[in-house]
C-alpha cells in the first residue's frame, strides 16, 4: 500500500463518509478498501495527455477479465456501460463503488437492472431480437459444419423472445425482462454472463476486504 500523507488520509476519510451515505451493501472498511483499489488502478492507468478522471474502458475490461474472469467482449462492454451510468466513457469513483455493490452484493432487483442495461446494447431501453442475436451469435460451438448455425441461433432467439416478451410487442422492455427473471431466475443472465460467479465473488472479497495490514 502506498505511503499516505495526513492530507490524503483526510481526503479518503471524507470520500468514505460521502459514499457510505450513497451506496448500500458496504461498510466503512469495505468502501475504504475499494477506494484504495480504485486509486491503485488509476495510478496504473497510463494516460497520454491530460490524466483521465476515471477508469477508461480498456483498464476496466482488464479488471473484469483478470479479477472477475469474464471473457466475452460484448458482455464486458455491456458491463462497462452498466457501470458508467452517466455515459461519459470513464468510470469515476462513485460509479465504481455503486457498480461493485450490485456486482458483489446486489439484490435480485438490482441485478436485473444491471443485466438489462448490459443486454440493451444500443441503450434504447429495449432489447430487440437483433440485439439478442448479436449476443448469441457465437453460441453454437458444436454445430454440424454442413448446416448454417445462424438458422439454429435465430430459432433459439425466436423461442426465447416468445417466452420473455410478455406484452407481445416484439421487443423486451424492462418490465418484460424483470417479470421473466422473477418467474425463472435462470433468465437473469439469459444472453451472456454479466455477473461474477459466487466463487469469484468470494475470492475477490477475501483479497480486497481483508483487514488492512497494520
Amino acid at each position: 500500500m502506498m505511503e499516505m500523507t495526513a492530507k490524503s488520509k483526510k481526503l479518503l476519510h471524507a470520500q468514505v463518509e460521502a459514499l457510505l451515505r450513497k451506496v448500500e451493501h458496504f461498510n466503512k472498511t469495505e468502501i475504504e478498501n475499494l477506494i484504495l483499489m480504485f486509486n491503485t488502478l488509476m495510478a496504473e492507468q497510463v494516460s497520454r495527455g491530460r490524466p483521465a478522471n476515471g477508469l477508461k474502458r480498456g483498464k476496466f475490461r482488464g479488471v473484469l477479465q483478470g479479477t472477475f474472469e469474464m471473457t466475452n467482449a460484448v458482455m464486458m462492454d455491456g458491463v462497462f456501460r452498466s457501470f458508467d451510468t452517466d455515459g461519459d466513457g470513464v468510470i469515476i469513483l462513485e460509479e465504481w463503488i455503486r457498480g461493485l455493490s450490485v456486482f458483489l452484493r446486489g439484490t435480485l432487483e438490482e441485478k436485473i437492472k444491471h443485466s438489462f442495461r448490459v443486454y440493451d446494447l444500443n441503450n434504447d431501453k429495449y432489447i430487440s431480437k437483433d440485439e439478442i442475436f448479436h449476443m448469441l451469435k457465437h453460441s453454437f460451438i458444436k454445430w454440424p459444419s454442413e448446416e448454417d448455425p445462424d438458422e439454429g441461433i435465430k430459432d433459439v432467439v425466436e423461442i426465447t423472445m416468445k417466452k420473455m416478451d410478455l406484452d407481445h410487442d416484439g421487443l423486451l422492455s424492462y418490465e418484460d425482462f424483470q417479470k421473466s427473471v422473477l418467474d425463472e431466475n435462470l433468465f437473469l443472465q439469459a444472453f451472456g454472463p454479466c455477473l461474477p460467479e459466487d466463487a469469484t465473488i468470494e475470492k475477490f472479497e477475501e483479497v480486497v476486504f481483508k483487514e488492512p495490514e497494520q
Partner: protein
Amino acid sequence: MGLILSRAAQWTSCCKLESAPLNEFLVTQVLNYVENFVSRHPQEAEHLFEEPLQWTTTLKKVDFKEDYVISAIGAKSLEKDSEGKPLLQYFPPFVSVRTISQLSKLLQLAADRKRQELQACLEENRDLIAKIVGQRLVNTPEENLSALELDIRVKLFILLKHIDEKILNKFVGEIAKQVKLLPAAVEEEVEFLKQYCTEGGKRLLKSLRYTSDYEFPNGCRAPPWRQLLGEICYVVIEPCDAEALYITCCSAGVFLNAGLDKEEDESLYERQGDFYEDMATLLKRVSPHFEKNVRKQYFVEQKPRKSIHVAHVDYEIEKAQPKTPEEREWEKVQQALYARKKREPCQRWRNLGVLSIFGSDEDLMMSAAEKKRLGSKTKVTMKVGLTAASSIGLTASQRRRSIVASLSEEHCSESSSESEEEEEQTERRPDTSTELQSEYWQVQKLVKYLKAADQTATVLVLCAMMDLDLMKEVIQLAILDLGGLELLLNLLDTTDIRSKIGSLKILAKISQNVIIRQTIVNMRGLQRMVNNLDLPVKELQALASETIAHVAKFRRARRTVRIHGGIRKLVKMLDCFHYSAKPGEDMEKNLEVARCGASALWSLSKSSKNKEAIRKAGGIPLLGLLLRSPYEKIAIPVVGTLQECASQKNYRVAIQNEGMVKDLVKNLSSDNEELQMLCASAIFKCAEDKLTRDLVRSHHGLQPLVSLLSKAENKQLLAAATGAIWKCSISMENVAIFQEYKALHMLIGLLTDQPEEVLVNVVGALGQFAQIQANKAAICNGGGIRALINLLNGTNQALLVNVAKAVGACATERDNVARSSSLSASICQQSSDSDNLCLDVGPHGLFPRMLSHLQRN
C-alpha cells in the same frame, strides 16, 4: 521349463498350481515331453541331476514293481550311479529322482495318477532347471554356451530350453483359443437366457438373477477384491430339473461356486466344479432339460440366424476338427450365443445411446495384449457378431412390455417390502405413432441445439425445454430416445451452475417416469447428482435431492445412492438451523434445502441398510429438530422418513427418547391428511413399545386418533389411524380413554365395507377392547359378532388371526355365547390353547369355518 513355471503358469498364494484350464494344458504338455524324452534323447535322459528332484508323492510301496528294491522303510531303484547310490529313492511320502529316465519310469508306474505326480513335482521344484543342470549353468549367458557344447550336461540344458520354448509357443496358441469373458459379454448372456425363464414351451430355466444389483462402472458386479481375481459377477440360476445353481462368472470362464447368494462369506466364493466357457455350456452339462430344449429352441429360431451358419462354417474350417452332427448343432447355438455377446454391446444400452459414455471404458478393459491374443479369432467372431445382431433385434421386440408400470402404486407402497417394486427392467421401444407428433420434433430440435450450445445458449435451450409439458409421457420418452437424457446428465458433470440447475429442473420432472428413472441409474446419473449435493449452492442441492427422491424408487437406485455417500450428504442438508440462521430469505432457502433432503431420505429409507446409514450419519436428532419446526411442508417428508424407519428398533427407541412422540401427536391434528396419515402410521409402528403407548396418552394423542376414524373416505388414513388405535389399545389405560371418546362404537361401524388393511386393524383393536368385560357385551349388542363372523370368509391371514382373537376374547363371556348361538352361529372358545372347543356346531357356524382355516394354515 523355467519360463513356463515362472511366467505362464498361474500360481495360487500357497505355491500350488491353480486348477485353471491353462495350467492343466501346461502340465499335459510337460508330461508329453517327459514321456518321449527317453526315446528321443537316451543319452541325456541318463544324465545325473545336480540335485535330486524331490516331492510328496501319492505312490504307495506296492506301486513299485520290478527294477526296484522294496524295503521296510520304502523303495529304491536297482539302477545306481557311478558311486553306487540309487537313482530313485522313496521314503513315504517323499520320492526323489535323479535322472529324467527315472522320472519318466515313475510316471509310467503312477499310471492314471501321472498328471497328479508331475504337477506335484513341478509345484515342489520351482527351480527345476537349476536342480537338473546346476545354478551356475543356468546363469551362464547364451553366447558362452556354444563353447561348452560337448558337455552332455550343457546339451541337456539346451534341450530343456528348447522344450520350454516349444511349450510356450503352444501355450500362446492355447491362450488365443481361450475364452476371455468380458462383463458386457456376461450381461448379454444373462439377458439372453432371461428370455427363456418364461412359462410355457419356450421355458428353459425357472429363474435367473444376479446376486447383486449394483453394477460397478466397469460393468462388473463382483466386489472389488474379487474383481482382482478376474471375477465379474455371480448368478443364481434355477434350472427346471435341478437345484438352484450358484455360478461365478470370471474372465477365465464360468464355474459353480459354493452357494454364494446374498451373504458374502469368503468360503462361498470357492470353485466347486470345472470351468466352462459360458453359462450355456455349464447349464447344458448340469441340466438335461436345458440341453434337450435348447436344441429344440435352436431349430425354432433357426431362420433369423441363417447368416450365422455361413460365418460359422469358416470357423469350423479353421478348427478342422471332425464332429458328430449333434455336437456341431450345439456348437452353432453356442456360436450364435457366444459370438453375439462377445462383440455386441447390450441392445438395451444401444437403444438408450449410452454407448458413447461407456465405449471408451470397454476399450480400456481390453488391453492391448488381450487384443493381440484374440487377434486370430476376432475376424471370424466379428463377422458372426454382425449378423447375429440383427436377430437380437427380433427377440428384444418380442420382449416389449407395457410402457409404464403404475406410478401411483409404487408411491402408495409405504411398507418396507422391497420386492414388489420396480425390480424388473422395463423394455421399451417408441411406438411409431408417437414419432409423428409435433412434440417429438420439438424435442428433437431442442436436443440438437443443446448438443451445439455454449453455456449461455444451453440455459436458454433448457428454459425452452422446461416449457414443454414435461409430465407428458410422449415428451419424456422423446427426450430419452433422442439422447436428451444423456446430455442433461452430462451437464451435471460441468462446472456451470446455471446449466446444472436448468438440467435438474427438467430431470426432477421427467424422473417421475419409471423408464427414465431406470435409465438415469444405468447412466450413473445418481452418482452425478450425489456429487452435486455438497456444492454450496442451495438451489442446486435442493433440486438434486428432489430428483434423487424421485429416482430412488427402486432398490438398485437406493443402493447406488448409499454406496456413493449420498446419505451422509443428504443428512447434512437437514441441518438447516446450523448455519447462521438469519431470518428471512436465507432461512427460507435453508428450509427448502432441508425439505428436499428429507424427501430424498424418505425415498431412500425404504431400504433397511439405508435406514441404518441415516441413523449412523446422525439423521435422527436432525429429523427430530425439523419435526418441531412449524412448517407443514417439511414435516411431511420428515414424518414420512420416520414412519418408514420406525420398523427398526433403534428408531423406535430414538423416537421415544428424543421426545418426538409429542410432535407426532401434535401433527395428528394438522389440516393435511397426508401428514395425519404419516403420523398415525408412525404411531402405529412405534406403539409396540409400552413407553410409547404411555407417551401418546400423556400427550393427549388418543382423542385425535379417534377423530380420524370419521375420515372414512381416505382409506390410507383410516388404515393408519385404526392401526395406531389397535396398537395403543394394548395398554388398558388407553382403552379406557378410547372409551370416553366412543371409539368402540365407531370401530364396530368400520367392520363392514372396508378394505382389508383397515379391517385387520379394526378387528385387532376390537380384540383388545374386548379384554374389558363391559365391552364384550357392547361388541355383541352392536352387531359386532355377526360382522366378525362374516369376516371369516376371507383369506387374509392377518385378518383371520385377529378375528379369531377378537371372537375368542368375546366368547369368554357366557351371555355372549348364548347370544351368538341365537345367531345360529355356534361359538367356540378360541383361547390360547385353541383345541378347547365347546358347544355344538352348526353347519354354517363359526367352528367349521375356523377349523377349516386352521387346517389350511
